[in-house]
């Protein structure tokens, strides 16, 4: 019998419906795979009983939704009722929410079970998973040079990406503030989509930067992403930024026929210092989309180079405000033995937050402080308006934009930790779409010369996830990316 952990979600679903295997067998296969892969440090909490319960509900006909009996991994940023939700931080150690985040509730409504909570950068701040209080996730991928160096799966959804790539979850939730779904998807050779801002409810997701945070799925295939996104998305009155719009049948409308579509190629994304193989893959991507019937057009996004500095004002500013709630009073840890309330706040926050989170809170507090607010924060919001305008103009000339996902393949753990700016640059291609709130997706394109996955990145106009998914499907069909990390764990 085929190894169930090799199958896509669509194959699992169809196999269960067709009676080829039981949901319980699927859950058991995944529970065993999760337990055997602890060396990757991808899961922070395992919930095998939860996966089995959803499987039994599917097998007995009690649940018949789109994801009946499919076990999923859930990023630790999503509140899960009664199950530790820590955002990868010491300050939320042992926090067990008395409520379910809307996205997870939606997935459960569709019949999905939970394999466990997935490791991540602390409060989603990082591009390599090294800021997690649980220690870094190790990518299942290794370079072909025989060095066996531990590589990062990317971040912040690094546990999520590693879980799909290692076959210890058929699909997972991620969140993306400035590339946290797309960059790890690219690093691990899987698919991941960040939908239009507001498609997925942020209610019950631990906040990082509220005007940017957006949940999305990561999975082996484009079709699986369409299935998962369909179950995750939807209007939620509990989130004031949730879009009151119907959820299209993205899976049903999947088509890789792109005739009549124009693909924008932004000239500003040819950046000095990016390895040749990234640009070579980008050119291949253009050819694949042409083959699918699309016409490439050169476009200009003139404010591209200002996206990262804009992001690193807006995101920390919003973070400093969002993270003010962690003060040792209502939940999470508290440092005892201090005299005053003020001392308790500052001692708790000093002990509870890691270095990167503190750095970003400090930057955010600085740019929001009296005398600097207009010079930094308001200025960044104005530049953000220009970046959004760039995209609006570009989409008068094209239907979807193609770029590389990240400026490199996965790097080694520890290689970039000493230089925050070098780390921030890893999201250079992903951040502009986040600032503009647009749907964007990474799909595997090929391997670099060291045998590591590289991703291609598609950006669509707001609300048009379908064109993004369709273009990604066209690339998926032509790239023939079937590589999997060789099992060593």
């Amino acid at each position, binding site marked *: 019998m085929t190894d169930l952990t090799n199958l896509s979600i669509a194959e699992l679903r169809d196999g269960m419906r067709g009676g080829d295997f039981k949901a319980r067998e699927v859950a058991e296969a995944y529970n065993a795979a999760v337990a055997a892969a602890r060396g990757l440090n991808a899961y922070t909490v395992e919930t095998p009983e939860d996966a089995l319960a959803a499987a039994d509900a599917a097998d007995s006909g009690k649940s018949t939704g789109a994801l009946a009996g499919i076990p999923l991994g859930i990023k630790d940023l999503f509140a899960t009722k009664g199950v530790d939700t820590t955002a990868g931080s010491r300050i939320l150690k042992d*926090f*067990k*929410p*008395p409520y379910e985040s809307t996205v997870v509730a939606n997935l459960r409504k569709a019949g999905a079970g939970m394999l466990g909570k997935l490791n991540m950068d602390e409060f989603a701040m990082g591009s390599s998973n090294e800021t997690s209080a649980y220690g870094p996730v190790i990518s299942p991928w290794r370079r072909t040079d025989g060095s066996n160096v531990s590589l990062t799966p990317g971040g912040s959804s690094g546990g999520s990406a590693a879980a799909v790539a290692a076959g210890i979850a058929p699909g997972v939730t991620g969140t993306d503030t400035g590339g946290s779904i797309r960059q790890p998807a690219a690093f691990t050779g899987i698919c991941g989509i960040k939908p*239009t*801002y*507001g498609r997925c409810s942020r209610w019950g997701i631990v906040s990082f930067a509220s*005007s*940017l945070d957006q949940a999305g799925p990561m999975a082996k295939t484009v079709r699986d992403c369409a299935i998962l996104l369909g179950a995750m998305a939807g209007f939620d*009155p509990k989130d*004031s*930024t949730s*879009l009151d719009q119907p959820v299209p049948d993205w899976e049903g409308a999947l088509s890789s026929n792109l005739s009549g579509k124009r693909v924008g190629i932004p000239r500003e994304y040819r950046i000095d210092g990016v390895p040749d193989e990234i640009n070579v893959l980008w050119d291949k991507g253009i050819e694949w989309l042409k083959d699918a019937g699309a016409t490439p057009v050169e476009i200009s996004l003139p404010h591209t*180079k200002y996206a990262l*500095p804009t992001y*690193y*004002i807006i995101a920390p500013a919003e973070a400093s405000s969002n993270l*003010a709630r962690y*003060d*040792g*009073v*209502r*939940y*999470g840890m*508290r440092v005892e033995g*201090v005299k*005053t*309330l*003020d001392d*308790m706040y*500052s*001692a708790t*926050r*000093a002990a509870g*937050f890691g270095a990167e989170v*503190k*750095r970003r*809170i*400090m*930057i955010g*507090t*600085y740019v929001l*402080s009296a005398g600097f607010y207009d*010079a930094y924060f*308001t*200025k*960044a*919001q*104005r*530049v*953000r*308006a*220009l970046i*959004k305008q760039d995209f609006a103009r570009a989409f008068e000339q094209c239907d979807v934009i193609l770029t590389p996902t990240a400026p490199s393949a996965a790097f080694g753990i520890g290689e970039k930790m000493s230089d*925050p*700016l070098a780390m921030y640059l890893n999201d250079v291609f992903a951040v502009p779409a986040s*600032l*503009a*709130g647009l749907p964007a997706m990474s799909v595997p394109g090929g391997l670099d010369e060291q045998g590591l996955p590289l991703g291609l990145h598609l950006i669509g106009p*707001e609300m048009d996830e379908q064109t993004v998914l369709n273009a990604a499907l066209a690339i998926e069909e032509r790239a023939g990316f079937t590589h999997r990390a060789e099992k060593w764990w």
Partner: protein
Amino acid sequence: MSVSPEQVRHIAKLARIAMSDEEIERLVPELNAIIGWVEQLGEVNTDGIEPLTAVIKQKLRLRDDAVTDGACRDAILANAPGAEHGFFAVPKVIE
């Protein structure tokens, strides 16, 4: 603009994060590198551009001014590091 150790100490106070002198010393060059880098936004002409506050245009919805949940005190207090008599407990504020 660049920050001095005194300013960083002040920011840490505003952010309610206790920091040792060594931490402050280490943060000064890190913050200055990041601040120096974001200052390239000064090159962009933003005259007459409205600051973007809502990335996808929509009206802010208001809900009815009515109680939508409640009677869940125990759930609210369940994760508190200190709770007494149905309240959050904190160190003494007034002597």
